[in-house]
């Protein structure tokens, strides 16, 4: 006769473990969306809308859809099993705010694909630098959010970095806009280019907003 371990013993904290993994996967998606975005922007500036750009756009939509599913599933489980009753409201808002960051990445790629702004080469470096800083901001806020779940004391460290990079992004955005408006492009082109500068800078602003609320949640979570 063969004996096997009772499955109940193994599943004691199994649901918790599955949910932990889903939350980690969700944050992976946010970070991945940033990488795809910066890659797509680089591609657009180099060759414009092409098959590869479209593929990246599709990939971004795909990430957005999966992240949405994960988020819904996590929220359902939290409420169905009345997990972390005192903090689940905060966790819910955190996940939704993070999800908005993915939506912003995807929306920006769509706007580029539809409006196809004509960016003169002299501004490429400025756009790339701004994008890099904004994406870093989001990556740092992802780290802060992960810390909220695992290591509450380092939320503060990550938040400090988010704030620093957001200020950097603001400086880069102003510098780029000033360069655009002092150039001899026509006003409608200037305004079109400015629109995209602001959209990219908004990513960093949104990341900073998440960091601010996260700081409050972290205080609430303290033992």
């Amino acid at each position: 006769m063969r004996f096997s371990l009772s499955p109940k013993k193994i599943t004691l904290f199994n649901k918790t473990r599955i949910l932990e993994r889903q939350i980690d996967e969700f944050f992976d998606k946010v970070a991945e969306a940033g990488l795809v975005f910066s890659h797509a922007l680089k591609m657009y500036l180099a060759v414009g809308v092409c098959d590869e750009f479209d593929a990246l756009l599709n990939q971004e939509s795909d990430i957005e859809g999966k992240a949405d599913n994960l988020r819904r599933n996590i929220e359902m489980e939290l409420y169905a099993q009345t997990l972390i009753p005192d903090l689940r409201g905060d966790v819910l808002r955190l996940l939704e705010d993070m999800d908005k960051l993915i939506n912003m990445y995807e929306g920006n790629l769509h706007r580029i694909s539809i409006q196809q702004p004509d960016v003169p080469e002299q501004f490429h470096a400025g756009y790339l630098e701004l994008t890099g800083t904004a994406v870093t901001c989001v990556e740092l806020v992802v780290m802060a959010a992960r810390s909220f779940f695992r290591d509450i004391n380092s939320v503060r460290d990550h938040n400090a970095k988010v704030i620093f990079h957001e200020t950097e992004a603001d400086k880069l955005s102003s510098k780029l806009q000033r360069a655009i408006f002092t150039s001899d492009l026509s006003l409608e082109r200037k305004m079109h280019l400015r629109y995209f500068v602001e959209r990219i800078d908004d990513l960093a602003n949104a990341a900073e907003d998440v960091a601010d609320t996260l700081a409050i949640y972290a205080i609430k979570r303290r033992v």
Partner: protein
Amino acid sequence: MDLTVLILLGSGLFLGWSLGANDAANVFGTAVGTRMVSFGTAAVVCGVFVILGAVISGAGAANTLGKLGSIDAIAGSFMAALAAAVTVYGMTRSGLPVSTSQAIVGAIIGWNLFSDAVTDTQALAKILFTWMVSPILAGLIAVLLFKLTEWVLNRAHLHLLRLDAYTRFALIGAGAFGAYSLGANNIANVMGVFVPVSPFTDFALTEQFTLTSVQQLFLLGSIAIALGVFTYSKRVMLTVGNELMPMSPINAWVVVVAHSIVLFLFASQGLEHTLAEAGLPTIPLVPVSSSQAVIGAVIGLGLLKGGRNVRWSVLVQIGTGWVVTPFLAAALCFVGLFFLQNVFDQQVYKPLRFELTPQVALRMSARGVPQVAYADLIGRSYESSGALLDDLTRHTLLTGKQVRIAIDQAKIQPLEITRFKLASTDFSRLNEAQRIALQLLEGQQYQYAWELADALSALSPQWTPRPAAAVNRSFNKRLEEDFAYLVRTFEISR
């Protein structure tokens, strides 16, 4: 057991029910209030562990109450429990924090006053001191436990969800411990006054395991507590949960554990024996207030976090409760006993006699009370300990301790070691030498309990108290309990 007895026990069951309805919230209130544990789980765990605690470890605190005043007629016990229950109910209705411990102590003193029995001031002082200490101790334990928990959690880096899952388990565990301690410590309040008049006889479940009459009484009382938990505590749990200070589940855990440790410390005979054997000072076994232990723990945590969240008005309320509860219960009990005796013609206490015979005088001098101090009173007899006390304080200069010795020695307590009673004696609690000595005394009669003690002591060193030293404390205590059991068993009912 006839119906009257059950009706008379009813007041104790009512008190048990209200204890379950109110105090279960101290154990599971925050867990249920914060929705970490469902009410169903909480009620089942609480009910089961209250019963276990009461039956297994309930005796220690009950002994102290017995010392304060030994109510010797079941109608008297009925009124004491009823007075306590009405006080608890009334105070709860008027929104004052109330403790069943304080109510029952007040009621016992009311009975002492009515029956003109002397209240043991030493036991009373011990109880009052414990009441002052228990909230402070709970606060200290809470602070230490919080610091330790914080230290561990800051290093463990648990995922929020994992921490949540562990906290649920910990809350249920702490609740079980809390319910056990509550049962062990507070069953004395509910059923303590019925111990000397227990209508039950010992009952052997198996050869090794006997349910004593006291345990049966405690079982009944704890079932009443469990009923209180199931039928009425949900509302209290949901409202009380966050009343004092908003708390996180982990803080709630700290509070429940601190509360439970305090209740356990003041109820555990096992711990008392261990401490005594190690030569350490023991902790008095006294019923303490579960609510006040919780309040102490919450205030301890509040102070640790800067004291801004603590509502100090609660402290004033506790103070009011401390003063009002015992007085109210004593007054109610006194008036109730008067009606029970004079209107309903019930015996609320047994007539006692105290006689200062030359024999008693000899024993008193052996215990450091010189005969010359009360020579005029030798040969007199008294109807109550109060009357003896009056005479001694009026005509002599004896100290309180010497008066206590006189009351103990002069109490007439006719005993007879009959074959019939020997047959129903629970010998499992006695050792071989003790058993043989007891059986040799078959057919003997005694006027004073100490005569039996002397006779037993002459037959076996196992019945002889050892010199008062820390190492002998647990032997002597055990001997005292065994002897009290013999007196209960062989007393000639009057």
